[in-house]
C-alpha cells in the first residue's frame, strides 16, 4: 500500500489528537501499532539509513527519559496511596500515574511525527502545502531554510576560528564569553544580511515578486481527499471526543 502525502498528514493529525485524549494503555498500543506499520507499510518506511538511525536514537532516548521521569514523579509528587517503599524512598501512585500518562503521550506524538517526516521528503510536503493554497513565499522560505541550516554549522565553525585567532576570549570567564557572543553572532548576521540582499536581488531579477503571480497551471491536484484521508479525518474527530465517549 502506497500512502500519499495528504493521507499521511491526516493520519499524523489523527494520532496527535489521540495522543492528547487517549488513556495511557491506548497510546502505548498505538505506538506499538505504529512501530509495526513502519516496517510493514512501504509508504511509512524511513527514507534512508540516517533517518532510521535517528528514529531509533530519539525514541530510545525518550523511552529512557520517560522511565526516569515516571520514577522521579512517583518520588516527588506525593499524591495517592504509597505503592512501594524502600530505604526511605516512597513511590506514590498519583505521581507514577501522572508520569505514565505523560510518557505514553510523548511517545505517541514523537513516533507519529518522526514516522511522518522520516518517510516523506520535505519537497513532498511543501508541494502539497502549495497545492492546498499555502502562499508560495512560505514554501520558498521552508526550502531556503533547509538550505541555510545545512550550511550553518560550517559557517559558525569558520567564524569561531577566525575570532579565536584574533584573541576573542571565547574560553575565558562567563562575562567575557557573553561579550564574545557578539563577536560570533555579529559577523554571522552581518554576512547573512548582505547575502540575503544579494539573494533577494537575484530572486526579483528572476521574476519573483512578493505580489503573487501564482502559476495557475501547476500540476493539478488529482484528488486530495481520498477515502483514506477522509477516514483519518473522521477518526481525528472521534479521537477528540474520546474522553467524552469513555465517560
Amino acid at each position, binding site marked *: 500500500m502506497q500512502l500519499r502525502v495528504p493521507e499521511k498528514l491526516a493520519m499524523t493529525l489523527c494520532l496527535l489528537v489521540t495522543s492528547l485524549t487517549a488513556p495511557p494503555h491506548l497510546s502505548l498500543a498505538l505506538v506499538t501499532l505504529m512501530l509495526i506499520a513502519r516496517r510493514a507499510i512501504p509508504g511509512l518506511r524511513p527514507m534512508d539509513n540516517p533517518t532510521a538511525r535517528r528514529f531509533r536514537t530519539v525514541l530510545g532516548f525518550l523511552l529512557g527519559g520517560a522511565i526516569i521521569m515516571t520514577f522521579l514523579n512517583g518520588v516527588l509528587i506525593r499524591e495517592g496511596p504509597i505503592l512501594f517503599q524502600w530505604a526511605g524512598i516512597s513511590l506514590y501512585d498519583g505521581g507514577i500515574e501522572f508520569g505514565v500518562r505523560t510518557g505514553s503521550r510523548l511517545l505517541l506524538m514523537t513516533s507519529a511525527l518522526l514516522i511522518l517526516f522520516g518517510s516523506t521528503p520535505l519537497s513532498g510536503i511543501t508541494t502539497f502545502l502549495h497545492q492546498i493554497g499555502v502562499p508560495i513565499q512560505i514554501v520558498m522560505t521552508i526550502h531556503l531554510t533547509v538550505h541555510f541550516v545545512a550550511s550553518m554549522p560550517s559557517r559558525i565553525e569558520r567564524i569561531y576560528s577566525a575570532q579565536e585567532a584574533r584573541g576573542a576570549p571565547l574560553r575565558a570567564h562567563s562575562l567575557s564569553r557573553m561579550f564574545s557572543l557578539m563577536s560570533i553572532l555579529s559577523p554571522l548576521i552581518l554576512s547573512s544580511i548582505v547575502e540575503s540582499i544579494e539573494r533577494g536581488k537575484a530572486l526579483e*531579477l528572476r521574476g519573483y*515578486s512578493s505580489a503573487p503571480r501564482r502559476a495557475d497551471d501547476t500540476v493539478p491536484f488529482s484528488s486530495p481527499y481520498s477515502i483514506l484521508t477522509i477516514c483519518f479525518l473522521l477518526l481525528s474527530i472521534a479521537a477528540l471526543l474520546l474522553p467524552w465517549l469513555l465517560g
Partner: protein
Amino acid sequence: MAPRITIDNLAYRYFAAGNPVFVGLSLEIPPGTCCAVLGPTGAGKTTLLEILSGIAGSQCKTSVAEGIIQIGENQYEPIPKATLFPGVGLLLQDPDVQISGIRDTVAAEVEFTLEQLSISATDRQRRVRDILADLGLSPLSQRHPLGVSGGERQRIALASVLVASPSLLLLDEPANALDSRSQHLLKGILRSRKETTTIILTDYSIDFALGLADMFVVLAAGRLVFQGTSTDFFKALVSMQDLLPIEYWKLLQSRLPKTRVRIPL
C-alpha cells in the same frame, strides 16, 4: 528584438544626503551591441547595471534619481521602479547567490525562473531543455545545482537568466572567478546571442571584453570618461591618463600590446 538603450543625463545617489554615484551620465547603446563597461573599483559599474535592470529602483528605498532612461520602446523617468523581468536579465557577480537553493536539481532550478510567467508546464520544460543544451549543461540537468564546479555554477546561473529570453542581458563581472576555459565557453555563448540581444557587461580589466565587445564605455567616479567602438578605445586610451586613477590606467595600458596586432587599422 534587441533594444536600443539610451541614458539621458542620469544622476543617482543612494541617500538624499549621500555622495552621488552618477552625475549627468549620458549613454547610447545601439541595438544588438555587446557593450563593455570598464572602470576602477567604485566607478559605479555595478550600480549602472542595477539601475538598468530595475533592481535599484525596486530595492533601494531611499535612493534619489534624475534623468531619463529608455530601453527599446519603453521610457522610464527617471529610472525603472521595478525589475524589468523578463525583458531584462542581470547576472550577478556571485553565481552562488543567484542559484536560489530552493530546488534540488539544475533543471528545476532553471525552471523556477519560468514559473513566475504564465507558461504551460510542457513549454517550460522544453525551454529549460533547450537552454541547458545551449550552455552545455544537459549532462548536469539532474544534479544538485550547488554540487557542481564553480564554472558550471556560473553557467547554471546564466541559464536561469537566459531561459526567460531577455532582450537586454546585463552581466556583472562575468569573468571573475572563471578559469580561461570557462571564459572561452562563456564568450562563445554570448557571441551566439548578439543577434537577438543587447548585452552590457562590466569588466575590471579588459581581458574578457577584448574580442567580444563592439563598444566600450569607461567610467570613473560616476562620470563618463569614454564611449565608442573598440578601435577608438585603443586610440583614445593614451589621452585618458589624466581622467583615470593612474594605477588603473597603467593596468589598461599593460593589457593592450598583446592584442593590438589583431585590430585591423
